[in-house]
């Protein structure tokens, strides 16, 4: 399989200056991974672990106070390499929507409230293709029919739609130009379970039909189990474990992943479960050594001093933990 996204040693920090105090928030702190064409790659982690920032950098959206410190994100579209961290604004405009699109967090609130849904779609189509208004009009209808969304929605204002419908409209908007890579940030968070299932179904349909690559960020491990084919777990700005999803759930290796998966209650099981003690570290003040050691039940002295590297333990598995290395 061809690798469509290659991320190497990516570091992106927020530099905040307030009342003469400089704070550096290390949101993405040395991340590298590869995503193959046609894959659904999941990024998991708690709030404040840098997963949303990582997605922003993948979309080439680094605006102050967020700044790229090191590393590169290389996209490979039909053997045309593109380093999104080093392209100019003009090229970025041409690449976005057509090649890479982004479903931002809380995306049910991104639609313009005073424009009808159809107009919003036509704006996008007209801006990024040479289609005329007429053609765009029918193109949008055709796409809605293909996705099984009611056409009535096109003539409503966003506030007339329910949250779940707005979320599906935003996903349709992000995919109407058939991009090669879709980045989705928490696409199902804040939705009801039944609607959440509908959105997962929609994303899967789009993936099957357009043969695109999906990168999904969500904290909900249940969603990852149903959607992602490969998952990486982030903790404090770094990847701590990466594995195919069935291996990840069956046999997690990193202590954090283990505790995270064990803390999830499931239907049909009332046995007492325990949460992970402590709280996630602040990204502006990371503990020395492994960032998870203050909460880790099996921490040793080496964990407090040196940070473990992300090493390949099996062909498709990588873990960053001193215990796993041996």
């Amino acid at each position: 399989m061809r690798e469509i996204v290659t991320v190497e040693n990516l570091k992106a920090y927020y530099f905040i200056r307030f009342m003469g105090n400089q704070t550096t928030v290390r949101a993405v702190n040395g991340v590298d991974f590869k995503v193959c064409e046609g894959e659904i790659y999941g990024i998991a982690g708690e709030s404040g672990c840098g997963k949303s920032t990582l997605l922003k950098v993948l979309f080439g959206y680094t605006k102050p106070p967020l700044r790229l410190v090191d590393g590169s994100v290389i996209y490979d579209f039909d053997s045309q390499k593109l380093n999104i961290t080093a392209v100019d604004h003009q090229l970025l405009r041409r690449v976005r929507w057509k090649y890479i699109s982004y479903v931002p967090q809380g995306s049910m609130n991104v639609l313009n409230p005073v424009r009808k849904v159809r107009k919003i779609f036509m704006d996008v189509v007209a801006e990024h293709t040479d289609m005329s208004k007429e053609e765009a009009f029918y193109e949008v209808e055709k796409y809605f029919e293909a996705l099984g969304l009611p056409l009535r929605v096109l003539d409503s204002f966003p506030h007339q739609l329910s949250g779940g419908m707005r979320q599906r409209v935003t996903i349709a908007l992000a995919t109407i130009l058939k991009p090669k890579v879709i980045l989705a940030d928490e696409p199902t968070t804040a939705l009801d379970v039944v609607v959440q299932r509908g959105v997962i179904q929609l994303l899967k349909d789009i993936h099957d039909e357009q043969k695109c690559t999906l990168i999904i960020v969500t904290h909900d491990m249940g969603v990852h189990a149903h959607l992602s084919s490969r998952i990486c777990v982030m903790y404090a700005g770094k990847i701590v474990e990466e594995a195919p999803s069935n291996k990840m759930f069956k046999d997690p290796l990193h202590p954090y992943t283990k505790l995270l998966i064990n803390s999830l209650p499931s239907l049909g099981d009332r046995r007492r479960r325990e949460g992970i003690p402590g709280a996630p570290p602040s990204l502006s003040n990371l503990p020395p050594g492994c960032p998870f050691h203050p909460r880790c039940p099996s921490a040793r002295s080496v964990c407090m001093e040196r940070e473990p590297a992300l090493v390949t333990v099996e062909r498709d598995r990588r873990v960053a933990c001193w215990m796993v290395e041996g």
Partner: protein
Amino acid sequence: MKIVVRNLVKIFKVGSIFSLKKLTAVDNVSFDILPGEIFSLVGESGCGKTTTAKILLGLEEPTAGEIFYDETPLEDFIRDKKEFLKKVQLIQQNPFSTFNPFRKIEDYLFKTVLRFGIADSREKAEKIIDERLSIVGMSFGEVRDRYPNEFSGGQLQRISIARALLTNPSFLVADEPVSMVDASLRISIVNLFKDLRERFGISVLYITHDLSTTYYVADRIAVMFRGNIVEMGNTQEVLDNPLHPYTVLLKVSVPIPNPETSWDERVDLSTLEREEYFTKGCKFAGRCPHVKEICKRLQPPDIECGGRTVKCWLYK
């Protein structure tokens, strides 16, 4: 404390004068919460679960229906607001908006203790606060002189539970207490409710849309849909073997964290969510796989079925 709710109705008027419609947010809801029981109201957003809680707390006037707290009607009980709030406390969904960012955490705790007359001096108050914080796994030393932004969401939620405990309540209303809390800390908050029930015999109304934590913590469950309770009974029985088609749909839609389970069937989402409130018959009829002629015409009655109540014509 035993809470009895009988035939509760809440009607909101929506639209302008010309298109005025009556939206029944809570439609003839009855349930009991026994002393020392965790009772869960489950449903999608807009099903009326929060409105029910607001009525129970006296924050919203019901259109019809009766509520009794240990045999005292709510109207009489709430007349002495201080006494009412001592017994009944609320835990809100978003721990970040519960606390004012410009006020110190300890300020909230001291005010609660002193205003309710639980302690008469700051020294005594500090002792009580420290004791309550230790129940939720924290200590007064951790919160002294600190502002809300210095805590994580999970810690803030613990503090707001500790604050609710300061008045020795016998009934807690928890409105989506874990939906804003990180996944790794969620279960520890849920465990707290279990502990509180066991140690102090507090009754808890646990409102959520998350079936997996409900299954874990609740004794009895009521599933709400568009203002109606469609199924009510023992949590384990209801969720292991749901009877109402809506409960079945809810149960199979929970994403189980195991990649080997997959959804084979496709799900039908309603495109007319608001219209469902105004339908004459069963409100789920538009999406129900077992829909019959009668469902569209008449609202089903509450049917007793093996120790639980189901609102569905299928079981008549």
